[in-house]
């Protein structure tokens, strides 16, 4: 047996870790990151001459469970054609047996890293609104993300928001209008989903996971589990941008209610409350007294009130002047 130097071992490790893309249209540029079941590479699509991100299983496996899960993730992404959800371009199996899928390469920053440079509350809330829009779209297509957290959200250079990592998404029900996936494929996906996430299986991230999800009550999960995660993301976004307005804090609290019945029924409802706050309108999570209503109303129509008051004062002054 030849003695292998440390240099040779490092070379062999690097060469063995790289996926074999021979026979595909992709050329690896470098590894972007890696996670529980595979790695994501920046690659060049030689046919379309564009950069893509390739998510590839890092190892072969006997059970085929991870390959199924990766393909299922690609199928779910394919069903979710929305500007706020990373689009999938292609999926397949490499010559070395590893399953992969190609998706848009998102040039941007993860939300948790970006937030340090976005100080204004209104800017952060607009980003959050777009996250709610994307999640609401997925819910409308019958998909639950189940792992929403700042690390899984990318913000592009033009402020576009993309929700990533749908690896543990759950299919709740078939969409009203069928997407490109056939009924059989969808049913297969559902049965696989049920198989892998039986009662007691805990999937998600502590701190962002709804209590019922943390208890492994897979059958009881619905859109409100994602609403809880959105509430945790909103709380995260409120860190470091000064005093939190009470209506916004109330929105986060409502979203993170222990009992799902106390939360927003959907991401869409939550997003609407954020939009109402940004427009200076009352939010459903925060019942107002007359005084608070007056303060909000005053704050919203500040300019008009100042103009009217100025006009009235001038009018009185002029009236008194002529009477003299």
């Amino acid at each position: 047996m030849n003695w292998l130097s440390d240099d040779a071992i490092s070379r062999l490790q690097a060469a063995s870790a790289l996926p074999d893309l021979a026979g595909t249209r992709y050329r690896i540029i470098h590894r972007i990151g890696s996670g529980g079941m595979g790695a994501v590479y920046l690659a060049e699509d030689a046919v379309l001459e564009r950069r893509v991100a390739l998510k590839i299983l890092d190892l072969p496996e006997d059970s085929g469970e991870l390959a199924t899960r990766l393909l299922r993730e690609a199928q779910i992404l394919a069903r979710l054609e929305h500007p706020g959800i990373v689009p999938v371009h292609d999926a397949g199996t490499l010559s070395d047996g590893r399953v992969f899928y190609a998706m848009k390469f998102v040039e941007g920053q993860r939300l948790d890293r970006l937030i340090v440079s976005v100080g204004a509350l209104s800017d952060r809330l607009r980003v959050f609104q777009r996250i709610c829009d994307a999640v609401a779209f997925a819910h409308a297509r019958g998909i639950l993300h189940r792992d929403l957290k700042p690390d899984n959200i990318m913000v592009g250079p033009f402020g576009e928001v993309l929700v990533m990592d749908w690896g543990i998404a759950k299919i709740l029900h078939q969409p009203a209008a069928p997407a490109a996936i056939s009924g059989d494929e969808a049913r297969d996906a559902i049965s696989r989903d049920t198989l892998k996430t039986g009662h007691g299986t805990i999937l998600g991230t502590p701190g962002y996971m709804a209590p019922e999800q943390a208890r492994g009550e897979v059958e009881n999960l619905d859109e409100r589990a994602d609403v809880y995660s959105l509430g945790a993301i909103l709380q995260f976004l409120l860190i470091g941008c000064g005093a939190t307005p009470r209506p916004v804090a109330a929105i986060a609290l409502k979203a993170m209610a222990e009992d799902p019945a106390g939360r927003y029924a959907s991401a869409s409802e939550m997003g609407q409350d954020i939009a109402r706050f940004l427009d200076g309108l009352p939010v459903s999570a925060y019942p107002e007294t007359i005084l608070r209503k007056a303060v909000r109303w005053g704050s919203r129509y500040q300019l008009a009130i100042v103009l009217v008051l100025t006009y009235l004062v001038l009018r009185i002054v002029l009236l008194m002047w002529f009477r003299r």
Partner: protein
Amino acid sequence: MTGDTKIGGRGGQFPATRWSAILAARSKDPAERSRALETIAAAYWKPIYKYFRLRWGKSNEDAKDLTQEFFTRIIEKDYLDGFDPAKARLRTFLRLCADRFLANEFKAAKRLKRGGGAQHVSLDFEAAEAELGRGRVSLSVAASPQAMDDFLEKEFVRSLFGLAVDKLREFCSRRGKQVQFQLFEAYDLVEEESERAGYAELARRFGIATTDVTNYLAFTRHEFRRIALEKLREMTASDAEFRREARALLGVEAE
């Protein structure tokens, strides 16, 4: 991608078609146990020999005897019955077994050996001794269990990759792909990074096109990876353990 997502559920077990030396070592069949010993010893004897030399400061003669007896006793004394991959990695377990063996059993083992104890494994100790000299091993590795574990980890990778290279050589030779292997040797196995020739230089040296260099290297690396993972499979008892070990072996651990 995230590293802290928790995925529950039971770990997959090896399908019956996969042969695992760890499982075979617990077999009632002596032939199967002997085969398991050979497989485990082939991958681990050098790391363990070096461990005896470095950690315990044994002379090369004593380390030879210890290594021989240790691997024989792994089977005879059913050491591997106590191995639980959920609790420790195999090399950590073997290190602890080696310590226990050294502390409690070596004297008895030595007596047995002098009385004609069987030796099942043929090992090239001169090569291992030479490697200790070449490897520029710092004596500080013996200072802490963690440093020793790291050292064993590295030596195990070296040992397993060495076995995979040998198997790849045989494989290429059988298939008439000696040039491919020589190219792999000249490019990927060269000792120092500074001695590494470029693709154009290798193409000239081997009298082939530069694109052939790319293709030949892709082929041998593909086969090397396959063989190395096959070897690793033999050293693990479940799919979950294999995946964990393979990630460490290939340096693809989650970030």
